[in-house]
């Protein structure tokens, strides 16, 4: 299922599963990720799954590119094995104070805000990967008519909890960080919990997300 393995620098394998972004390819990436993770191979220092790539970082004192590439190429994964998938419900408030880019999205999509939000909340989203910053989930796919590019000039600070869209994807900003996604609302729910070291992420690759709409009062209530 891996199409090609290249090197990324001198201490990482770049496993290529294809160029398209879809759930089938991504599910393969995730299967490989969990399989290799569970093998607990000595000298593997990180596994980074994304839409259609898996990067395997290793300790140069233990592996060379050629030796580890062979090991990974020889891995067989049973097709039948199903991924464990959780359905996670996440509350989002779309009050004016939180929907930072709703006007821009209205203009770009030529849809009224209520229609945009109705479409946004009517779908379940699949988690392709988590990362960039701790716990941030990359979710998809938005309907065709909901797709737009990121902001021309990224924000220096996107508030924690912001829920944004770009292209076919949506995400949740787990920390205040720079970013260029179109922000539609904010969740009061903690998506990344540093104190839970065994499972800090609320959302993991392969999970399904259902956003539901809450009022400002409910947002404040949950936040408290």
């Amino acid at each position, binding site marked *: 299922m891996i199409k090609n393995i290249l090197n990324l620098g001198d201490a990482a394998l770049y496993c290529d599963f294809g160029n398209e972004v879809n759930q089938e390819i991504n599910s393969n990436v995730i299967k490989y990720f969990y399989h290799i993770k569970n093998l607990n191979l000595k000298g593997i220092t*990180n596994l980074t799954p994304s839409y259609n790539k898996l990067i395997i970082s290793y300790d140069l004192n233990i592996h060379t590119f050629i030796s580890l590439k062979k090991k990974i190429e020889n891995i067989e994964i049973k097709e039948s094995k199903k991924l464990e998938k959780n359905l996670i419900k996440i509350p989002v408030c779309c009050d004016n104070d939180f929907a930072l880019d709703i006007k821009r999205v209205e203009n770009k999509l030529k849809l009224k805000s209520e229609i945009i939000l109705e479409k946004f909340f009517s779908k379940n989203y699949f988690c392709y990967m988590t990362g960039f910053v701790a716990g941030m989930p990359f979710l998809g796919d938005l309907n065709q008519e909901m797709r737009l590019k990121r902001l021309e000039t990224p924000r220096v600070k996107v508030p924690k909890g912001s829920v944004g869209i770009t292209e076919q994807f949506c995400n949740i900003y787990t920390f205040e960080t720079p970013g260029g996604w179109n922000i539609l609302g904010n969740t009061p729910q903690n998506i990344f919990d540093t104190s839970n070291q065994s499972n800090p992420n609320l959302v993991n690759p392969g999970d399904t997300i259902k956003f539901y709409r809450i009022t400002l009062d409910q947002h404040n209530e949950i936040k408290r």
Partner: protein
Amino acid sequence: MKSKDRNYFKILRAGINTTYQDLGRNNLYHIGIPFSGAMDKRNFQLLNSLLQNDYNSPVIEFAYQGPHLKYFGKDIFFCISGNVSFKIMTEEGVVDGNSYQCYLLKNGDEVDIYSTNKSVYGYFSINGTFGVDYYWGSCSINTQAQIGPNNGNKFSKDLEIEIIDINNSFNKRRLDYLGSTIENIRVIKGTNYDYFSESSQNKFFKESFRITKLSDRMGMRLEGPKIENIIDPNIKSEGLVKGVIQITSAGDPIIMLSDHGTIGGYPKIATVISADYDRLVQLTPGSNIKFKDVSLEDAETLYKLYQMETNNLISQIK
């Protein structure tokens, strides 16, 4: 603990980006947590060897300017690694200290680490153990994700640094070492090398780039000739590793460092080889660097040589 039994430093001045660091945390990229850890691993290793501490003991890392510390407690030794200027204030007066030498501190003595020289990072530790909390097996502070001791924040004035253990069988040691610098950064071509025009590929290796002030533990931004993208200024977001050089939409290189975001969507033109990483991070803003292309096989050999050199330095500690 009764206060008279405590051994601790009080921070009179925090310095710049002063944090606890060790070798960092592995196997968390998939949830978005980078390695972190000491930026310059060689100086981290040398410091713990000089102090006869465990190889992964926490140390205090600082950038450009270190902390000014006042010590309270039983006699203790400290040591500093990196190219660092500092003063030691005792009852007998003020003396200038040298890196890679161990010094005795008595109750009430002070250490003022006032500057790194022509370099960015320096390291401070003691013949003992700081009282730190561990997060995913590491005490490294990642200020971006607020992970680590001190609530994941850098040190601030008046903070007290606890020492929970002092090694009494310690032998005072030193190393004669002037540090090692680098001008050409060796890289391996990246997975998106063909995203850039031939003339830009040539410029990347022929012309020099200047390190800008927008550089920290997450990344190093460079400026120089614009690198022209002929395919797409973005790729589908995918994993990153330390040392990856991405080209932003504006055509400028940005090098991923120890606290980098784990996923990125800019094309990768090249990756800095592991052997050159410690010396890369020590280059100060304003420095000019040139990139040199090496093969994967050469990079693997160069890393082994670099490690041998580090072990050789450790064996010269006397």
